[in-house]
């Protein structure tokens, strides 16, 4: 029993020692340096590979282009670098290291700040800046008060005077003074603010969320997880916790230069946030523009992209009419846009409601806002609507739309075409109002187009914390890099018939200007005590 408990104590003691050593390692500047570098290196894949949180479509494309590499990268979180456990680990270690080193640095730097200038070193002549003056017929006390006055005139404020030895009238006096202590304070503020920024970022990534959505003119969007095209929540976000709001898009407006360069985008919205959201039509008008996001209770919305949504009216063989705008994807800067309109419910007998698989209809479309004057009308000359038109490819057959395979809604599953499930009926170019009769008596009309906008909606509860930290960081950094900390030591010793004044200065290696300042101080003191110059080299 005894033996084993002694062993336990020993082992515990060793563990404690190792723990302390480990802690010491973790909070050293070298470790912080390494962690800092690691963080930078860890960020590189995040800027190299497409990231899911930024652009899921690019990740899909990467999968297609690199079928072998992509799954491996994915397993290593290569497409979610900034949400990966290894990024979080580095971040956390840096955070701990920084907090730990802050605590020890506060001890090291705040104490001297409170305690004032240190004692005068024994051998002043060893310091980098050194001068000796001799006065005649003055006691150290009298000389000291002249020196103090001279220093005060030069704005040295924190001066400590010490009297050594009791010998009356012949005591040795030392003065020590310090300026630029703000440097350490600035440095502390900087590092502390860095921790604050890290906290703000962490809060944002744990409790914040963002999502992307697309709204067509006349359409409405309400804030709920399932209404987003893509949604990335922070780890601690609960679905119910998402603040409600609804937004409807009245009109989208884009203006361009004659060469097609966009000048301005604006979206006229109505929105309702808070408790009333979702209960009635959105009411508050707002103009959403680039650099002018919509801020609502608990979330912000900004404009990312825009495009056209052609409206097709399809009348099937039973006379049922299908009409809706379908967002098309812009393919170039003149907004040549592609998309598909799939009607899996077309050509069902309204009497029997029986699904006839082989008479589903799909259109592939190429929309141009401004078509040229001669066919084929597949190039857009200008991004605004001038002479719009759409080239349609009509298909009939089995679209496979409810076959359970997720796929882009902007393109048709080409394997269905090659397998013969979908048959191409032909193609036609339509201008607004024109229609095209298909072989089974059904008819499609190009009604016109609406515009759509895509928005990103996000909520970040840590941003004010991060901003505060960032501002403090810059201020602390400026103070710390542009104040020079410098110390001045004076020793006054009685000599026969006078006082010998030894003057020395100490500063960081980077403060070459201090040499000049030291010269001025020396001159001022010499004038103040009216001393004869003494040879420096003794």
């Amino acid at each position, binding site marked *: 029993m005894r033996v084993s408990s002694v062993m336990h104590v020993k082992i515990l003691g060793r563990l404690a020692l190792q723990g302390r050593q480990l802690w010491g390692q973790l909070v050293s500047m070298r470790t912080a340096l390494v962690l800092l570098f690691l963080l930078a290196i860890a*960020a590189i894949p995040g800027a190299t590979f497409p990231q899911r949180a930024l652009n899921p479509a690019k990740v899909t494309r990467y999968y297609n282009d690199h079928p072998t590499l992509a799954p491996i990268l994915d397993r290593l979180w290569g497409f979610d670098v*900034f949400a990966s456990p290894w990024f979080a680990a580095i971040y956390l270690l840096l955070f701990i290291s920084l907090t730990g080193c802050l605590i020890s640095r506060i001890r090291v730097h705040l104490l001297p700040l409170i305690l004032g200038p240190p004692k005068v070193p024994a051998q002043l002549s060893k310091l980098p800046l050194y001068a000796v003056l001799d006065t005649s017929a003055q006691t150290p006390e009298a000389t000291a008060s002249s020196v103090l006055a001279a220093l005060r005139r030069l704005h040295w404020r924190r001066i400590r005077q010490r009297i050594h030895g009791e010998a009356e009238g012949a005591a040795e006096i030392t003065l020590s003074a310090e300026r630029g202590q703000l440097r350490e304070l600035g440095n502390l503020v900087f590092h502390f603010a860095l921790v604050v920024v890290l906290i703000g970022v962490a809060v944002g990534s744990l409790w914040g969320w963002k999502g992307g959505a697309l709204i067509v003119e006349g359409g409405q969007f309400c804030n709920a997880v399932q209404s987003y095209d893509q949604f990335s929540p922070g780890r601690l976000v609960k679905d119910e916790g998402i603040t409600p709001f609804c937004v409807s898009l009245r009109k989208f407006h884009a203006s361009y230069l004659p060469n097609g*360069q966009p000048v301005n985008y604006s979206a006229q919205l109505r929105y309702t946030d808070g408790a009333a959201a979702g209960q009635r039509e959105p009411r508050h008008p707002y103009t959403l523009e680039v*650099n002018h996001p919509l801020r609502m209770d608990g979330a912000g919305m900004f404009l990312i992209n825009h495009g056209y949504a052609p409206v097709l009216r399809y009348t099937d063989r039973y006379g049922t009419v299908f009409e809706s705008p379908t967002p098309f994807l812009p393919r170039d800067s003149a907004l040549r846009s592609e998309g598909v309109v799939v009607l899996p419910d077309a050509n069902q007998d309204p009497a029997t409601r029986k699904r006839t698989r082989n008479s589903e209809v799909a259109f592939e479309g190429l929309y141009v806002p401004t078509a040229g004057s001669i066919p084929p009308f597949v190039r857009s000359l200008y991004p605004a609507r001038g002479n719009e038109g759409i080239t349609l490819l009509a298909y009939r057959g089995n679209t496979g739309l409810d076959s359970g395979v997720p796929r882009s809604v902007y393109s048709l599953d080409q394997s269905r075409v090659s397998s013969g499930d979908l048959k191409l009926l032909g193609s036609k170019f339509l201008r607004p109002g024109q229609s095209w009769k298909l072989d089974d008596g059904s008819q499609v009309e190009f009604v016109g187009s609406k515009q759509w906008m895509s928005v990103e909606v996000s909520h970040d509860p840590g941003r004010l914390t991060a901003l505060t930290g960032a501002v403090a960081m810059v201020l602390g950094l400026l103070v710390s890099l542009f104040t020079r900390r410098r110390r001045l030591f004076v020793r006054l010793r009685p000599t026969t018939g006078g006082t010998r004044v030894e003057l020395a200065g100490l500063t960081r*290696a980077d403060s070459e200007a201090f*040499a000049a300042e030291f010269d001025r101080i020396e001159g001022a003191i010499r004038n103040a005590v009216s001393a004869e110059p003494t040879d420096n080299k003794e």
Partner: protein
Amino acid sequence: MPIDQSLADVSNTFFLWTIVAYTVAMSCYAIEYAFGTRGAVAAAARSSAAPVRQRELVGVAPGGPATTPTPPEPPDELETAAPGLRSDANRVLGGIAVAATFLGFALALTSLVTRGVSVGRVPWGNMYEFVCLACLVGVLCWLIVIIRRPQLRHLGLFVLLPVVLLLGLAGTVLYAEAAPLVPALNSVWLKIHVSAAATSSGIFLFGFVCAVLYLLRQGYDARIAEGRVVKFPFTLAPRLPVAESLERLTFRVHALAFPLWTFAVIAGAIWAEAAWTRYWGWDPKETWAFISWVVYAAYLHARATAGWWGKRATFIVVLGWATMMVNLFVINLVQTGLHSYAGVN
């Protein structure tokens, strides 16, 4: 907003003449550098026996107050290292070089201003303009140095070489016609964020040059001390200033650029918040700005860490500049994120 095309053309002409002026300056510097007297080596070696009282970069009028005599100043490290320009030809060349540098700077400034006036906005709305501004700042740093230390002018070669390369790339690969801003850039934050980013990039550029010069000099000194053969590029080093002075200059330049860069990144984050309601999204451009920031912070730290001062710390500067270049060229040209800045099609 209408574009004044003829003024934009004037700006382009000034841009071309800027490159010509800088190239002339560079050639003169190069000749002067190659044929300057060799006596400087010995002088530099002598002066590295450290004087008691260190005199460093900041110019100090010799002597204290007029009434008090002071002991003679030890020789200035940087001055001693300058080549003794004995021959008149060299003096003329050096004069032409400095004049051409000033002229080039004036031309570059005019080019930027006319570009701004022609499009009615600040002239840093695309990458071409960004690089022009950064180079302007880089050269300005150099002009400040030669105004304070005329004897250093023979080092102009090393400053103008990267500037001319960057401007060449700006005028070819990155060139964008004068045009108003794309909607995404139409914000007051463009004025704040991009000007800070371009200015700090220019200072970093100059700092990078100082770092390379230091590494050359340091490598040369080490080779001499160890009795090794000095090969290119270290053969360039004997006429460089003393290693410690270059190291200190490198630090001071970065101590200026780093807070500005920090500010630029933060202003960018605030702009991102204003435009996109989120201040940071790990967009490639943001990510690389962060990487550069971390690398330069690591440099400031490394310099304060025992055993890292000098060569090892200064290598981090080279790394830092490499990350800046990645951000400027690779990210803008190859990858695109939300930052619709490049203006390169």
